[in-house]
């Protein structure tokens, strides 16, 4: 049977690569994103194993309705990948509270709401695997990203706590911490900045979304069945 995985932020970047990888591996995906046009474009490219769900993960009621809809239309959910994330960078002295709030709401509260919505079904099925997409900035910090880094560190607390709650229930919860990855988010940076980034990585290059997708697939799949509560850095050695 095709395992079903819910991926948030599935329309672009790392979320798209994760969806693509899972589908190539014979899984099916419920792809959630707030960006409707991009999501529909992704859906056209990824075919029938991908079903698009337009969703704002900060909307508690919408998360409940969508989770019920996914289970009804696509069946029991085996996996959840909390990938959706936004940035509103700025030095903390100049960071407005609304920029703090929205980043927390999307990156951390959104992940909480999704975990809560889907864990009921996983408990019922007595199996499941959740992967939260954190970041190296959770471990290193980053100037101008106090809000973003806080959420990515918060996801590690969420990951470890849930992993303990569900460890005896055959539901695993892990995190992946990507380093500098070439995506829409980093592609627009000036060439010089990107070179500086790459230079700080021991492997001297930025990563590709595929590398993250491979790590996520590994943690979702039964091959990692004795692994729970970990943070897997995929960063070319940046946090070593």
């Amino acid at each position, binding site marked *: 049977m095709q395992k079903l995985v819910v991926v948030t932020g599935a329309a672009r970047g790392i979320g798209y690569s994760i969806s693509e990888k899972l589908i190539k591996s014979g899984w099916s995906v419920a792809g959630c994103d707030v960006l409707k046009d991009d999501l529909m474009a992704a859906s056209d490219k990824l075919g029938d194993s991908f079903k698009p769900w337009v969703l704002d993960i900060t909307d508690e009621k919408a998360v409940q309705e969508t989770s019920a809809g996914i289970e009804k239309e696509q069946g029991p959910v085996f996996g959840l990948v909390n990938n959706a994330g936004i940035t509103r960078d700025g030095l903390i002295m100049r960071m407005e509270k609304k920029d703090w709030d929205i980043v927390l709401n999307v990156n951390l509260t959104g992940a909480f709401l999704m975990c809560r919505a889907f864990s*009921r079904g996983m*408990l*019922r099925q007595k199996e499941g695997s959740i992967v939260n997409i954190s970041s190296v900035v959770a471990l290193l910090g980053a100037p101008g990203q106090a809000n973003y880094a806080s959420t990515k560190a918060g996801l590690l607390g969420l990951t470890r706590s849930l992993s303990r*709650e*569900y460890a*005896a*229930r055959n539901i695993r919860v892990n995190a992946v911490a990507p380093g500098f990855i070439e995506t829409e988010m980093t592609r627009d940076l000036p060439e010089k900045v990107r070179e500086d980034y790459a230079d700080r990585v021991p492997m001297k290059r930025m990563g590709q979304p595929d590398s993250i997708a491979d790590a996520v697939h590994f943690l979702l799949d039964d091959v990692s069945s004795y692994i729970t509560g970990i943070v897997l850095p995929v960063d070319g050695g940046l946090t070593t």
Partner: protein
Amino acid sequence: MSLESRVSEIIIDKLGVKPEQVTMEAQFDTDLGADSIDQYELIMGFEDAFGLRIDEDEATKLTTVGKVIDYLKTKDLDQ
């Protein structure tokens, strides 16, 4: 099968306890060894078996076998 028997059966199945342990007064946590997730799963088991939704506020009050049965008797159940 009576409501009491069905409730007992669910508790025995979910918690792996002996039938004689499931008395009306038995507390799920102290007498039947259920941790908080066990208790959540029990509530889910009752919901599935009787076709109803038990909200969080009510669920936290259902701490003994007797309280579950009394609560279910007030509801319109799938039998």
